[in-house]
């Protein structure tokens, strides 16, 4: 790992702890798609920092190009996190915004995804968008891991620029799979419920 990545992980740990709790699965080196609630700008860094060093190398966060695409954030996203940048605003109707994610999964990378698409105001996540379902269908062998990020909305409330040091935990739940006859709505609701279920998992 690059020295800059070590520095960032150190800083994240210093400020928000980012303690991992493996509630429903173990940190294993298998291809996974982590999906989590999204409440602050440091969610991505916190989840990534909570992973063991060995897993961080092959786990890439999915980040919005309009936020992470310039300046220091761009450096962080592309050089440190090796993020997969996606367009939230679809430019040309012919391109699939999920294309970069599909390419990364084909390569064997693990991904970190925030299926709400945007940061919510509440600790409990809002409705999930359909990308998660499509990826799950297309890559049935990739483990889908629900993740709950606790306290990060307190550390960095919407509109804040400097995080307040508050201990945050990152809870990893049990893997999920799309049922044979399961509809998109049902699966997305179940995935969201799996994240919410981790809110009161005994830490």
């Amino acid at each position: 790992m690059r020295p800059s990545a070590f520095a960032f992980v150190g800083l994240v740990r210093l400020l928000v702890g980012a303690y991992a709790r493996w509630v429903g699965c173990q940190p294993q080196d298998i291809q996974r798609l982590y999906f989590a609630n999204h409440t602050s700008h440091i969610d991505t860094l916190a989840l990534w920092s909570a992973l063991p060093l060995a897993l961080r190398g092959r786990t890439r966060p999915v980040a919005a190009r309009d936020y992470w695409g310039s300046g220091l954030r761009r450096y962080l996203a592309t050089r440190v996190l090796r993020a997969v940048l996606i367009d939230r605003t679809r430019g040309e109707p012919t391109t699939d915004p999920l294309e970069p994610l599909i390419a990364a999964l084909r390569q064997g990378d693990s991904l970190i995804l925030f299926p709400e698409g945007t940061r919510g105001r509440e600790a409990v996540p809002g409705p999930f968008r359909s990308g998660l379902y499509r990826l799950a269908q297309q890559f049935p062998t990739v483990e889908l891991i629900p993740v709950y990020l606790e306290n990060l909305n307190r550390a960095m409330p919407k509109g804040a620029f400097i995080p307040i040091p508050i201990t945050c935990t990152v809870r990893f739940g049990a893997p999920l799979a799309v049922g044979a006859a399961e509809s998109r709505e049902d699966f997305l609701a179940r995935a969201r419920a799996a994240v919410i279920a981790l809110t009161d998992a005994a830490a």
Partner: protein
Amino acid sequence: MDARHKALWLFGGVIVLLVVASIAGAVLSARAGSERGRATVANLVARVNAWWVMVAFLAIAFALGSTAMLVMFAFASFFALREFVTLTPTRRGDYVPLLLSFYVLVPLQYVLIGYGQYGTYAIFIPVYAFLLLPAAASLAGDTADFLTRSAKIQWGVMITVYCISYAPALLLLEVPGYRGADALLVFYLVFVVQFSDVMQYVFGKLFGRTRLAPQVSPSKTVEGLVGGGLTATAAGGALWWITPFTWQQSLAMSFVIVVMGVLGGLTLSAVKRSLGAKDWGVMIEGHGGMLDRFDSITFAAPVFFHATRYFFT
């Protein structure tokens, strides 16, 4: 014997104690039969291992000098405050006061101590921060639970920043005839407080029958308190040769440190439980959080500092 030699002897002694503790842990691990016994021994081993790390940190700070000591305690304050704030329900309106507490008050308090500004660092937080933190919160315009929220932040800052900072402030006490050895006074304080905690735990596990305050601190027993407290007082008395005190004075000082340490442990345990937690955090394996280890120091440090300052300078 100069201060450096004394420090070497002291750390040598602590290492011997830790080796004995580690061996005892290994022997007990091999013997533990019941499920509960195994859990207790595993926790004991984790505690001892954490002690090795903490002693290593302290030894490095000693070797590097007073600036390193101040930086180390500043980090201890930072992490302790982080734990306190984590357990305290704060709102969006507390953002600015919290920002000030972490990024201004913590460094500034230790810088003031580093420059020996006694008149300033002794009143900076109790007066100026006390007034300015709620003022900053009032600007956010959120009046819900305003007094409660302000008081909790003020409490957190007083305990984790102000009170803890008195431990390295001992470095700047100018005790006549004791120049250049002030770091030993920090060692003395930390050793007596922590040895008291450890001995209370040991006596409590071996002889504990009567619980002292079951609601506040279920593991504290009268037997542990008396046995551990007296042992630590005696050990502190026996360390008179590293202090500016006679052995009788050292005994009295240790007694004050032990009593304040116990009160600090009980009070912060009550605070912790009122916030709905069993441990302050998870930073230190086997012990809980930073504040679980520093709770006794927060009460003992200011009183020991002022007792020494009043009677010996």
